[in-house]
């Protein structure tokens, strides 16, 4: 079942089209930065973007900061929103369940396929942005090949940079698992995949909006997007683990609650489509 879902995902041209669109944004930014040598003013723009003008090896992190708040979660919401509701809309869900496959197993297979999409997308963005960053960016007047500079100004060796970058991308994947869990739950209750995706996106927009509102401060610790950019804290010295751990706990809570809700909804649902 999992193999079938993965195969369906990877053979779908729309999957690769979506990944290409997500990947195009950081690539375009890299080209523009290389042509103009104009970084964002301090305090503006995505994290790490000003630093890539002197150190191109940091561009995967700038790319992550660009796609994580909007592009990636929208894509995940669309893919996960289609998982169950898409089958129902096409009238194939009944036939899927006629096979001797439990509903829980089918739901797990759908979730694995969504996460495979997230992993592939994030890896494509990481590899592309590293290549583009090293080839196009970095201050050529800096002839040293010494350590990278951490956010706190201290040296960061190449193994440290690679390790922390790996953690940052793993953290981003966990954040997207939270979005996938919400969209998958909505996919089990909505009649159309677009409705499920829109529902998840509404939650994302509401979360982002409420984070800007001081009056909603009591809600901030519970908001889905609250800790998404905490991966930046992995590059401070010392690492600011408390924010990262809080982020992991919040995403974990969303995953547990919404996957549980998706399971409860799907395993008790009357399937007529």
């Amino acid at each position, binding site marked *: 079942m999992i193999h079938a879902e993965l195969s369906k995902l990877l053979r779908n041209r729309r999957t690769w089209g979506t990944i290409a669109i997500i990947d195009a944004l950081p690539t375009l930014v890299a080209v523009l930065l290389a042509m103009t040598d104009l970084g*964002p003013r*301090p*305090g*503006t*723009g*995505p*994290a*790490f*973007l*000003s*630093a890539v003008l*002197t*150190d191109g090896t940091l561009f995967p992190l700038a790319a992550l900061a660009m796609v994580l708040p909007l592009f990636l979660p929208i894509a995940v919401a669309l893919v996960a929103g289609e998982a169950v509701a898409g089958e129902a809309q096409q009238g194939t869900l009944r036939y899927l369940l006629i096979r001797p496959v439990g509903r829980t197993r089918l739901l797990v297979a759908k979730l694995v396929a969504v996460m495979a999409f997230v992993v592939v997308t994030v890896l494509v963005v990481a590899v592309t942005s590293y290549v583009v960053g090293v080839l196009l960016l970095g*201050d050529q007047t*800096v002839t*040293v090949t*010494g*350590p*990278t*500079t951490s*956010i*706190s*100004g*201290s*040296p960061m060796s190449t193994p440290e940079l690679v390790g922390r970058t790996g953690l940052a991308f793993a953290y981003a994947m966990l954040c997207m698992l939270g979005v996938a869990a919400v969209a998958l739950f909505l996919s089990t209750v909505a009649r159309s995949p677009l409705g499920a995706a829109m529902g998840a996106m509404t939650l994302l927009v509401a979360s982002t909006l409420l984070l800007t509102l*001081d009056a909603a401060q009591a809600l901030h*610790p*519970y908001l889905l997007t609250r800790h998404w*950019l905490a991966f*930046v804290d992995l590059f*401070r010295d*010392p690492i*600011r683990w*408390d924010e990262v751990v809080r982020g992991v706990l919040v995403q974990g*809570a969303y995953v*547990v*609650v919404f996957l*549980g*809700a998706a*399971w*409860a909804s799907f395993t008790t649902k009357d399937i007529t489509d």
Partner: protein
Amino acid sequence: MVALAAGLLVVAPLVGRWLPAGEADVGPTELLEQTRAAVDEPWSGTVETEGTLQLPDADRFGGVAALFGERTTLRAWWRDPEHWRVDRLLTTGETDIRRNGDTTLEWSFERAEATYSRDPAIRLPRPADLVPPVLAERLLRGVSDADVSPLPTRRLAGESAAGLRVRPPSDLSSIGRVDIWTGQDSHLPLLVEVYATGQATPSFTSSLTDVSTEPPTDDVLAFEPTARTDVSVDDVLDIADAANQYAPVRPPATAAGLDLGPASDGAVGVYGEGTAQLIAIPLRDREADALRTQMAITPGVEQDTERTVVSVGPLGVLLTGGDGDGGWLLAGTLTRDALERAGRDVVAGFVFVDEAR
């Protein structure tokens, strides 16, 4: 079952906050001394400051406006008042200040710049001035036992904290009250709230959200630049330090009845202490005109040919003179009347360096 799990996950983070705070184990007098002494004690932790003071945002003073008008997250390592590091955390990077004896290092990740300078007594406010132990010590200068009263204990940063309400001893102060809660285990001020006269909500708060009393290690306080860092040495720290060193004037000995402080060794005057303090900085035409333009569009501004003045919460800002005149910038926690009087005193009483000799 899913609903139960959701409920538990929502409630779990609140359990720590719902724990009752213990009774205060010290009286107001001892608590006042404890709070004052905390500035010399080592600690490290995360500080959240929140200001609602929308100050005029002129170029050379932009950092100050952000400091008092925004929510700021700081990470601090404090060994003693001369050895510390305070990082201002941003989603786009961070700006750090480290002090090591007489030397100050400012690091900006986004500019990839490390700037060494002296640490002068006369300078603009910076994030390290707003961490609770430092802010509390500054606000408590000149405060006696008669000016404080106890507040109910609260649970803050995982410990019980005893509260102290401070009423400014000077009638000139625009601060209505300062509420300070000091941890009963850490003996550090964990929350400082500053209220303007007549206001029910604080104009400025500074809180330690997590704290450790372990002294910070050398490697955390030290700075080791990489080859990609642009390292420079600057003779001046900011516009107040520059004016203090190079402006050819000297401020008068008193302003609005407040005496010139011992730190005033140049052109800039610092008057009063604690909750009633004022700084007077001489500005050249260029800086004064830019600031006057910004002040003119600040809500509540009053302007005539003699001065431009605005009060934002407990902070008053007054710039003497008109366009092209240069001027004295006066800023502090004085009432409007006292600020106006101080402005007149400074204009009438300052002297040029040649006259002062």
